[in-house]
């Protein structure tokens, strides 16, 4: 009875979470939903006399693989949400047809099949218990496959390193180069700090220059863009116009912004 209740609860949760994986616009939510599915499945494994697998599922999948996913998501850009406009003609329709057809087939096949009572793993694990039986199989009958998986893992690790590695094509800029570039550029000095000295102590407020004009470059571009998107604009029209202008500014900044971009190329979006 306990297993039935567990099953139905977890079945509903896992199917719902799986649908969430597919239909969430934000990839981070998809990842979290997938974590939910995996945890549910881990519990289902445990219920089905597979505690070892349940542990591995939590450690390997939820612990390692999901973290890897999230890490890459952060690298690629966490806040971008996907467009749900389908560009391939008929793709969704046929995908739904195929998936539904497949499910129908599975339901028909297993629903009509009459299974005998579960044999259970009692006899299979009679010699020395569950963990010992698993170990026995893994290190005797499947030892060769096991060794091969180790080779596979090493290869995968090497492959990932090779793929992610980037050759440095130019000489690393020395301090001398950087300083020369700065003095040859538009602005030898550092960017001005934000206007946190006056009536406002927020970092998204532009500074005022001694003559009273607004220093646009004192606000971070991304922060300005966030303010524009969410309507957090100051009441002073002069400052608001400066932030809007800063948010539209796509061009590269001189000075530290440039070296910043070089350090973490591929992360900005």
């Amino acid at each position: 009875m306990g297993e039935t209740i567990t099953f139905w609860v977890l079945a509903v949760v896992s199917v719902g979470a799986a649908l969430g994986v597919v239909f969430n616009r934000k990839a981070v939510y998809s990842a979290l939903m997938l974590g939910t599915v995996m945890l549910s499945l881990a519990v289902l494994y445990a219920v089905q006399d597979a505690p070892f697998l349940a542990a591995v599922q939590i450690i390997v999948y939820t612990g390692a693989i999901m973290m890897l996913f999230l890490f890459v998501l952060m690298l690629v850009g966490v806040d971008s949400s996907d467009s749900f406009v389908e560009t391939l003609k008929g793709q969704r329709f046929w995908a739904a047809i195929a998936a539904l057809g497949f499910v129908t087939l599975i339901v028909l096949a297993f629903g009509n099949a009459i299974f005998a009572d579960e044999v259970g793993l009692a006899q299979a694990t009679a010699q020395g218990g569950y963990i010992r039986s698993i170990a026995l199989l893994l290190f005797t009958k499947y030892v060769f496959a096991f060794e091969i998986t180790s080779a596979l893992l090493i290869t995968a690790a090497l492959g990932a390193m090779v793929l992610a590695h980037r050759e440095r094509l130019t000489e690393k800029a020395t301090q001398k180069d950087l300083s020369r570039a700065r003095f040859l550029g538009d602005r030898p000095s550092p960017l001005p700090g934000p206007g946190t000295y006056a009536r406002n102590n927020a970092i998204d407020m532009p500074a005022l220059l001694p003559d009273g004009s607004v220093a646009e470059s004192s606000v971070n571009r991304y922060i300005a863009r966030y303010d524009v998107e969410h309507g957090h604009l100051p009441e002073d029209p002069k400052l608001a116009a400066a932030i809007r202008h800063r948010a539209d500014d796509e061009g590269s900044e001189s000075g530290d912004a440039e070296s910043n971009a070089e350090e973490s190329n591929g992360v900005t979006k």
Partner: protein
Amino acid sequence: MESQIAEIAQHTGGVIGLSWLMIAFPLVGAFVLLVFGRFTNRWGHLLGVAMSLASFAVAVLGFFELIGFGEEERRRAVHLYEFIPGMVDMGLLIDPLSISFALLITGVGSLIHIYSIGYMSHDEHRRRFFAYLNLFVAAMLLLVLADNYVGLFIGWEGVGLASYLLIGFWQFKPSAAVAAKKAFVVNRVGDFGLLVGMFVIWTTFGTLTFQGLGEQITPGTENGTMLAIGLLLLLGACGKSAQLPLQSWLLDAMEGPTPVSALIHAATMVTAGVYLVVRSGAFFFPEGSGAALAVAVVGAATLLAGAIIGCAKDDIKKGLAGSTMSQIGYMMLGAGLGPAGYAFAIGHLITHGFFKADLFLGAGSVMHGMNDEVDMRKYGGLRKFMPVTFATFFIGYLAIIGFPLLSGYFTKDGIIETAVHHQPILGWLAVLGAGITGFYMSRMVFMTFFGQKRWADDAHPHESPSVMTVPLMVLSLGALGLGAYLVLSNRLMLFLAPAVGRPEELPAFHFTSTPGLATLALVAVGAAFAWMRYGRAEVPSVQPRGSFLTTFARRDLYGDALNESLFMRPGQWLTRIAVFFDNRGIDGLVNGLAAGIGGSSGRLRRIQTGFARTYALSILIGAALLTGALLLVGNI
């Protein structure tokens, strides 16, 4: 049986056994001269002459050995080697007919070789010229000496090749190259006839040797197959001998050097057709048969056509070429009259070989002294400047028009009388042709050697060197007396009888027969007319426009125009149709197939969109279908 042809006896020893040397000598000469090329430049012409003379010597010795045998044993076969196993053994047949030809070919050939030393002395390719001449002599001897049709055909093609090479000897002249090609192509038509004739002979009788045919064919047999073979062989003879309707190449062939015209296109090669008819006469052209009549009709038509063409030509060599056509027409006419005509045909062939070579070489001598000018309107009054040439040319002229007691008189008159006796209409046409001959030959002589000087300012006519005049003298001797020697008391007829048979009763030569007198009268009229027009009167040095008849003759009786409109144009149309069909039909099919496959591939490859999701969709649909199928067949 008076007309019976003698049996052929095998022969192994003696000079006749070595008669293959006749062919081998000039062949070796040609080989050496062609293979060793420039190394032989200095003495090549001497080697050519020596080889030709050696061949002549063998022929003379063979001739004397042959007449040493009894009359019934004068056909000797010399087996050489197995040529095509089970089909053809290569061998030579030495009999009165072939030895006569061999003597003519090597004798006149040697004289022309000697003459060419002088004539070609300024040509840088003289060595090559002698190589081709030797090649020709070898091929021609193979043609007449072979004891089967295959050997004859090889020689036949060999002389065709030599003729092609020699007509186009000055191939840097476009006209010479075109003339050579024309001769080759027209000859192909005739060769085709000969070849198909040989096929029919083989399928009908299973043999191609003259001996085998002689054993199988009862003399006088006449049926459809024999007529077909006869007409096919006649087609071959027409091509080689420039008889109607394949006459058009001979006039253009005069583009070759003059000794070539004398040897190949007057004395020997063009008479190969006559040889073919006479050699096959006992088998396929029996007296009174349709094939023989066809031969006679072709001969009569050609003798008139050639004579008419000869009247209008101002080019001395082309005039002589028309005359050659005409004279070979006489021979064909004689050859179409059965054994009675054979002897006269061969006799005329031999004497014609002498006097026509004499005339051609005389013309060559004139050209040699006149800066290679060939237009007779630019000659005139040359008899004082080239007395020897004039004398020999004049003897040849008298011989060809049939001046009493000279060669042509006896042999041509023999043909005419036999023709009047057997085919009266053709015979009287031959009489008419003789009259025209009298006119155009006189015209040639008067325009060249009489009248006023009309030559160009830079011409300095002079007598040719003795290496050229001596052969002329020898040839004119033949033109003088050979006819009388051969015809009187039927010497040639009796000599040839073992090879070609002989008539029931031997003809006696009448000096005062009606056709003979008529011929003489017509010739006299023709010569007198020519004297009035060209001897006494002024000859315009530019060709006058002339009447319709003159134009007709000048244009070679529209033979070229006829060939072009009947064969060349339809051939071109056919080619164009074939090209059109090839371009649109076959290419269209192939290209269409390729375009169809290419087009459908171009559409099919659109399936490869590059979108991984599309591929994934097809995989999922495939997997679902597979699962469904497995469930349906109940294996899950």
